[in-house]
């Protein structure tokens, strides 16, 4: 059981690291000749990937998947709330700027 669980932790870490490395690819494809350009797709993708990583950390590293339903739902609601605030702020700010 212990070996299985530790393998699971390793897979979780590999997944989180792969998602972090995905940012390098996004960064590489987003810019042209080293010039940074504004992009809603990149911004929303970056936020969504970060939130998926946060949820994985909650569920696996912080052992929320073994927690009572209240904590599981609360942490999920928190991830959604943080996402709504971040993406909402970006779009509201963009609307105000234009």
């Amino acid at each position: 059981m212990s070996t299985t669980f530790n393998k699971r932790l390793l897979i979780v870490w590999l997944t989180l690291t792969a998602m972090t490395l995905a940012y390098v690819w996004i960064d590489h494809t987003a810019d042209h000749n080293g010039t940074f350009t504004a992009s809603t797709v990149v911004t929303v993708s970056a936020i969504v990937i970060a939130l998926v990583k946060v949820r994985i950390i909650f569920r696996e590293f912080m052992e929320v998947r073994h927690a009572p339903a209240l904590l599981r739902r609360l942490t999920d609601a928190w991830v959604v709330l943080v996402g709504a605030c971040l993406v909402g702020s970006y779009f509201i700010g963009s609307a105000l700027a234009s």
Partner: protein
Amino acid sequence: MTNLAGAGPVPRQLEERPRRFVPGQPDMWVFVLFETLLFTGYFSVYLVSRTQNRELYLQSQSHLDLRIGVFNTIALLLSSWAIARCVQAAREGAYRSALTNAFLTISFGIVFLTSKVLEWIKQIHLGNTFTSNDFFQHYFFMTSIHCIHVLIGFLVLGVLVYQLWSPARRSQQLVETCATYWHTVDFLWVLIFALLYVVR
């Protein structure tokens, strides 16, 4: 006498544990969720501010090296993995392994902190300081507030090591509470990294 060798008996508190349990003390979870909301409020201000002066933010952001951010993130993810293994080992009574993983967590935390300080020095040499412009004000504020959390994390990990060292002081709930705090430091950085280095 200190007994670190091999697996110890599983504490009675764990045998009596229900199948579903809150990891660590519930108070720590209240703190985690509250702290996350505080940071989210600040992140929202940063994102709105970003949209009001895109060119300045994009131009300033180009001074940051994404590779350093990726390195920082992987170092903290490694520390989170190590503390998750520490919790698992302590639960099984393998306290020597738990201590090794606690020290690994501290080591990866130090790697993170060192690379962050080196990055600050690099930016200051490039002329980018707290007062340079809005982007760098946010950059230095967010990263330094986060580093204060890392420093508090070292105190928490110190308590963890102290508790694990002696059989008389071992408490699985305390191990999980310390781990919960450290994971929070990790996932806050995951968000900060995306917002400072990647968003456009």
